[in-house]
């Protein structure tokens, strides 16, 4: 019983680690403070759930969720390409809310607030991931691949360019680098992997509804990324374990379950404010949030 509980937490941590690492590509490496990242997660989850409901093979649906999310990443980058600072963040927040509102109201497609139930467990070329244990193995493999690819990207010369855009976009332009293209691609990469994380989530929980992807849930992901440190992949992963693992201690205190939810959210908010106040570079970060 206890071990089933730990496996559940582990799967959630793996999924959020992907989400945090992918957000770090946009915020930490490219310098795009995207407050609408949760929307890509949601788009991925819905894409995968709806496709498999319509008999699309799981692996295809998984890939499609990443691709579809990154199409939205392209869209968001396009419409906000000239904004910066507060205004960029607020526009991305707005984007997150519009996506949420569409999920909630396009009932014909998403079944609105009722959500989509009975999302099937993945079947990958005969490997049927029925139990949580096998799902943990599968999700961990995917996470490892994603983190490896992102690591390769950020350590490459291309990754350096993303960082150049973050540090001084005009300076990068003067060197002949197309910063608009780089910003768009940075956000698309970030969205792609968030979409994959969404698919992993949907097929694990097997039920999704819009409330999971409301903008207030962006706090958790931001807490993970900032506590881990901007532009640190290792930081994001370790931080996901700490930030999501810690509140689980609440379960061992005798509290009614209706209190645990809000208390978790409050803990995330408090941690985020404290880290901004006392250690804004986080545990492993080398750059400042500006």
């Amino acid at each position, binding site marked *: 019983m206890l071990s089933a509980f730990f496996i559940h937490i582990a799967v959630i941590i793996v999924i959020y680690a992907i989400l945090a690492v992918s957000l770090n590509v946009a915020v930490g490496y490219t310098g795009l403070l995207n407050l609408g990242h949760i929307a890509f997660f949601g788009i991925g989850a819905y894409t995968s759930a709806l496709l498999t409901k319509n008999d699309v093979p799981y692996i295809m649906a998984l890939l499609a969720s990443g691709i579809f999310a990154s199409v939205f990443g392209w869209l968001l980058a396009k419409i906000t390409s000239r904004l910066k600072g507060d205004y960029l963040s607020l526009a991305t927040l707005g984007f997150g809310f519009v996506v949420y509102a569409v999920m909630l109201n396009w009932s014909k497609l998403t079944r609105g607030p009722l959500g989509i139930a009975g999302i099937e467990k993945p079947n990958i070329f005969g490997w049927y991931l029925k139990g949580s244990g096998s799902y943990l193995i599968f999700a961990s493999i995917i996470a490892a691949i994603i983190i490896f690819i992102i690591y*390769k990207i950020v350590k490459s010369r291309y990754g*350096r360019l993303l*960082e150049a855009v973050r540090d001084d976009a*005009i300076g990068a332009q*003067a060197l*002949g680098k197309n910063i608009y293209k780089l910003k768009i691609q940075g956000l698309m990469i970030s969205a792609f992997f968030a979409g994959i994380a969404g698919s992993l989530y949907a097929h694990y929980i097997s039920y999704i509804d819009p409330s999971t992807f409301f903008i207030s849930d962006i706090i958790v992901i931001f807490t993970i990324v900032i506590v881990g440190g901007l*532009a640190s992949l290792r930081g994001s992963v370790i931080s996901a374990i700490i930030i999501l693992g810690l509140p689980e201690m609440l379960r061992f205190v005798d509290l009614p379950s209706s209190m645990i939810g809000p208390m978790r959210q409050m803990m995330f908010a408090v941690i985020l404010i404290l880290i901004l106040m006392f250690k804004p570079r986080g545990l492993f970060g*080398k750059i400042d949030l500006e």
Partner: protein
Amino acid sequence: MLEIKNIKKSFGGVKAIKGSDFIIEKNKVTALIGPNGAGKTTLFDIIAGLTRPDEGHIIFEEKDITKKEPHKIANLGISRTFQQVRLFKNLTILDHLQMVEDNKDMGLLKNIFTNKKRSDKKYEQVLENFGIKRTLDTYISDLSYGQRKLLQIAMTLEKSHKLLMLDEPVAGVNKVIQSDIENLLLKLKEENETILLIDHDMEFVRKLADHVIALDAGVVICEGTPDKVLKNKKVLEAYLGE
């Protein structure tokens, strides 16, 4: 090589450039002088595409580049420095030198899976040529101001270019680095580089420039040989009248 045609620009009602016309000739050093606020840097930004003029045209090698994006202008061969250095503070010297080498880093997929060997030798040579006594792995945030200024000039020169635009290359550096940079510029002149320069040191301008353009309050008040311009009454007034 570069033609500035009737450029006008105002910021929120304040006219910064009130119709400038001049030509930068190939293989010549042209100096842009004038008191602070004369519009020199604004003009640089307009040429580089960072600021869009309200009126007028910029013609580079017979092509109208007025509405081109900054990176496209840079890739046409206009290489510039900024008065306030614009480097990437969380990256290393090596990263910077690699960036100016070519634009192959723009390809995402090509870069992820190909691990090209670092050719440190070449880059170390650049550092030596410009007198930057630091290792390639040094972060920009650890460099002194003078070193940053040198690195920026090094990058501007290393980048393939036809026209160099230098915005106060010696402002804010110590005497030693100042004379290093000035010697470097004299050498560039000998090598027949095309240079557009903003500088305040009139003695040095007299030594380096083939052609001087004096700007005041957004208009060209005088242009010609250094001797002619630096003796011009209006120019002297503009400077002393500050």
